[in-house]
């Protein structure tokens, strides 16, 4: 009993945690119909890192092994205060300060060692200051600036720049700190680790730099690299996902912001051309235009670039060109840049996913269901391979993966015809996860009463439970449709067919490989406000048809109605009883509530 009690608590905790994770699910569907989907890619510090930067890893000032003499004493004293206090309490620095005096007075120190002492002087002040002690931090900062004016040792200079940035960060100078971190990130010979710099940039700017970056934007136009970083960060996309029930229209505020950005870009046109040619300026201006909700403006910039310009190979350019076309409702024109992005060796996996999902949107609009299926399947395979279960949105590029899989599911269930599925399977036999398409084709064939064909496919893909079940169904169906039987025999055969269907809910017409119990959340065309009227009407109709076609009990009921309505009266009570069981077993989600209610009343009288 004691063991049971001991085990009970962790078990409950485990169960609760499992339920928590089990309850959250991704509901991405037709995300390309949201304008935010087409915003420029989110950028973080890692996107501004130059490749193959050569870094060094030398000990910081004061952290080398202490061997003897005054410098050793100083190092030893500094090492005692070098670890920050978890409660941010400033350390006692009288001992290191005394050691500093002693080391400064030591005539035997080399030039390098003297630089180390000077840097330690600044570092001791910095350690002594609490984050709110502006005066002491400013003193340390002055020492670091003076140090950088004269010091020659590269690793100490790099370290000093890092501390200078750190002090700027503590003093709330986002711009000063950010520029130093960014420069160090791409400086050969930097003694600061890549991880430290990326973390520092993330801490300094967050996702988009906030109001601080916006108000200091013009200060970044000292170098093209700083300007490109600042503009791209400040134009990082945002996507409100409906948490605010009564969202405000921020378009006027955003328009003012981005109009300011455009003016800055115009004013510093030559700076941005100077290093990288026209590309940087074009990309930044397109990005800003799209962010402002001006796809026509972005398209105009793209159209002005010669077709042989190397910018056409850039993933960002292709994405933004596709966006400006899609948002301008020129869906066909969005195809080429999306294909370019998908095939580009420069594109990351997430950028390829964006292209693939964008292509799903293009092909939905242009009616190319086969290609839509291709890219939806690619996304499905990729999301599973990368073990993506939830999408959080644009900031981490996860929304492009269509993690829910519902876009593919609806293609397989309703949007693609049986012939299109069959043709896709035969033309792409080796495509990853083609087995899922085959399984879905088989399900679709059963819904059309083409049981033998379906059973063959199940057999070929080793669906060991469905294959024999569908073969049995094929026999029963065949029997119920024999023309050489009399009415009584045929109705008895129909009754047997209906009994078989009602005894196998979700095992014949329902595609159990796709939905994992979440189908009801995907069949929402009636509430989807991103569709044209024609699309919406068509989707509502196809969702209704899907629900009718896949519900074994409903189909059994329809067969039983034929039996009840026939002249074979002795079968009526049995058929009515079974029909009633079928109707009462159908979930509320199926709909047709009024019809079912009336039928229930009628059937009760016939039992």
């Amino acid at each position, binding site marked *: 009993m004691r063991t049971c009690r001991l085990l009970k608590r962790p078990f409950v905790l485990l169960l609760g945690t499992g339920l928590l994770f089990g309850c959250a699910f991704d509901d991405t569907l037709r995300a*390309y*119909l*949201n*304008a*935010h*989907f*087409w915003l420029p890619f989110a950028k973080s510090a890692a996107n501004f890192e130059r490749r193959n930067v050569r870094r060094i890893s030398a000990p910081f000032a004061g952290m080398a092994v202490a061997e003897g003499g005054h410098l050793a004493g100083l190092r030893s004293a500094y090492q005692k205060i070098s670890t920050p206090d978890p409660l941010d309490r400033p350390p006692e620095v009288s001992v290191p300060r005394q050691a500093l005096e002693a080391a400064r007075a030591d005539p035997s120190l080399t030039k390098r060692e003297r630089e180390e002492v000077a840097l330690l002087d600044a570092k001791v002040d910095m350690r002594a200051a609490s984050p709110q002690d502006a005066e002491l931090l400013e003193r340390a900062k002055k020492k670091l600036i003076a140090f950088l004016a004269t010091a020659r040792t590269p690793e100490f200079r790099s370290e000093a720049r890092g501390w200078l940035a750190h002090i700027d960060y503590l003093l709330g100078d986002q711009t000063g700190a950010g520029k130093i971190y960014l420069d160090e990130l791409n400086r050969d010979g930097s003694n600061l680790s890549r991880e430290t710099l990326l973390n520092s940039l993330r801490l300094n700017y967050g996702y988009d730099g906030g109001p601080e970056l916006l108000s200091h934007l013009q200060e970044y136009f000292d170098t093209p690299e700083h300007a490109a970083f600042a503009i791209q960060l400040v134009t990082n996309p945002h996507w409100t996902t409906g948490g605010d*029930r*009564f*969202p*405000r*229209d921020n*378009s006027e505020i955003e328009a003012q912001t981005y109009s300011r950005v455009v003016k800055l870009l115009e004013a510093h046109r030559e700076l941005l051309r100077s290093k990288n040619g026209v590309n940087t300026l074009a990309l930044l201006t397109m990005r800003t235009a799209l962010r402002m909700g001006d796809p026509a403006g972005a398209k105009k910039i793209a159209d002005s670039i010669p077709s042989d310009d190397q910018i056409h190979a850039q993933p960002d350019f292709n994405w933004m060109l596709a966006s400006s076309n*899609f*948002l301008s*409702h020129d869906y066909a024109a969005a195809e080429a840049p999306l294909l370019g992005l998908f095939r580009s060796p420069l594109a990351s996996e997430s950028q390829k996913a964006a292209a693939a999902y964008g292509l799903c*949107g293009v092909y939905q*609009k242009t009616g190319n269901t086969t290609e839509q299926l291709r890219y939806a399947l690619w996304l499905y395979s990729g999301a599973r391979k990368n073990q993506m279960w939830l999408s959080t949105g644009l900031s981490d590029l996860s929304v492009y993966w269509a993690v829910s899989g519902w876009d593919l599911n609806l293609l397989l269930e309703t949007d693609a015809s049986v012939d299109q599925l069959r043709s896709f399977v035969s033309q792409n036999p080796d495509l990853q996860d083609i087995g899922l398409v085959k399984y879905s084709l088989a399900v679709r064939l059963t819904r059309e009463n083409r049981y033998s064909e379906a059973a063959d496919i199940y057999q070929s893909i080793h669906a060991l439970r469905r294959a024999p079940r569908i073969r049995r169904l094929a026999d029963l169906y065949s029997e119920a449709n024999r023309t050489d039987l009399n009415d009584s025999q045929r109705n008895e055969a129909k009754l047997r067919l209906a009994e078989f269907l009602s005894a196998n809910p979700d095992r014949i017409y329902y595609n159990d490989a796709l939905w994992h119990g979440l189908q009801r959340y995907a069949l929402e065309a009636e*509430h989807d*406000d*991103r*569709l*044209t*009227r024609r699309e*919406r009407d068509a989707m509502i109709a196809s969702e209704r048809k899907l629900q009718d076609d896949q519900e074994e009990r409903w189909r059994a009921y329809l067969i039983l109605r034929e039996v009840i309505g026939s002249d074979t009266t002795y079968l009526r009570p049995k058929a009515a009883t079974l029909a009633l069981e079928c109707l009462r077993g159908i979930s509320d989600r199926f709909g047709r509530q009024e019809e079912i209610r009336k039928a229930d009343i009628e059937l009760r009288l016939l039992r």
Partner: protein
Amino acid sequence: MRFIPLCFVLSTSLLLSACAVSSWSQQPGRQLTTAFWYWQGSSVDPTWSSQPVDAVFVQVGNIRSDRPGGGTERWFAYGDLPKDLPPARDYWLVYRFDGTGVPDVQVAPIIGEEISQLQATAQDRNLHVIGVQLDIDSPTGSLVQYARFLHEVRTKLPSGLRISITALLDWFRSGTSVDGVINEVDEFVPQFYDLSDPTGYGRKAAITAQVDAVRWGPVFNRFGKPFRIGISTFGRARAVPVAANSGTAKYARISLFGDVGLMDIATNSAFEIETSRDPANELVLTFRAKHETRIDYNRFGPGDAIQFILATPESVRSAVDNVRRMHGNLIGVAFFRWPATEDTLAMQPEEVLAAAGNTPQHPKPARVEVVNGHCAAVQCGDIYLMGADPFFPKETHYEIRSSANFEYFLPEHNMPVRILSPSQLDLSLPAYCGRGRLYLGRAITATRSEFTVERQ
């Protein structure tokens, strides 16, 4: 001879001051300062373009305690400045205590530290914080303890900050220790609303208590300290079973009913409406069930009712007029509370200020606001109606026109709006439902569209 000019000056001064007093006492339109409580849930409409109010009492946090493992009581005070605040000349940071009794003095330094940090944050945002208000419903028998607590809090606050407290009317009856409490503060705010439990056996629906200036003026003025008067501008819904009115079941439970809005009931044909006014001139809308019906998980039998009690311009005007007569150390009124954006029961700030006589009464015509839904392949927008008359006693029709034909329109749940023609919507707004910012639904058009509204 030298005394004559002095006497002349003295008598002239006396005469002038008498005139000033009498003219002041004869100024029914004397401008009181107006303040709002900005509570958890309150939100600022970005289209609020009126002048800054005099003061805002911002609920920043709560004082609470726990007893881990049944041991020693621990005290906490957490505070956070809301992201959006209405523009005001002065801000007060309010800490509320929801418990019974009085907080322990050990929480005073914690409050002090929190206030320091909040003050720094407020400074960064250019908010002029002038004090702290403690909203503590101390039992009348614990006022001595409360005074000690206030004394301790003052010693821990940053210098220069004032202390205000909300006050219960029961404190001011004779024989209590309220003098000690008032002594410790710089101002106090007696509240003339929710004097009794709205779910209690007394069954009174009213929120607002009538302000008897003749009775209360001398009571509040005797302390020689500035005071404001708290006036209700919010509303409430409660479920009233039929037995509560008939007296057949003595303890039939009246419960506060926050689950459902005025529109949800007004559009439900199972209910019929009765209207009345309480003694404070609040509007009481009683929706009585004609037959058995359910709303969500709540079951209503025939005769059961849902009652909405709403502040009105008349109730606010009457209260403010009565408050003015208190004179003396009265500095103004404080309204509870600034509404949330989707609040359909509280009065909007511009309504309140107009009723209080602070701003001229120019009711704005009805207008629509469209919030972009950011759809990629169609134009989609959320349509809001504003400026409808919240106290109109009959159903009103509004015609909303679009410059482009609708692909379709998805109305908000329970919103009685329908497509009248390819480019027109008809809204049948039930009586008394035109309050605040009404979300009508989402409009989908193929091309960009402009919307206008006309009352029929």
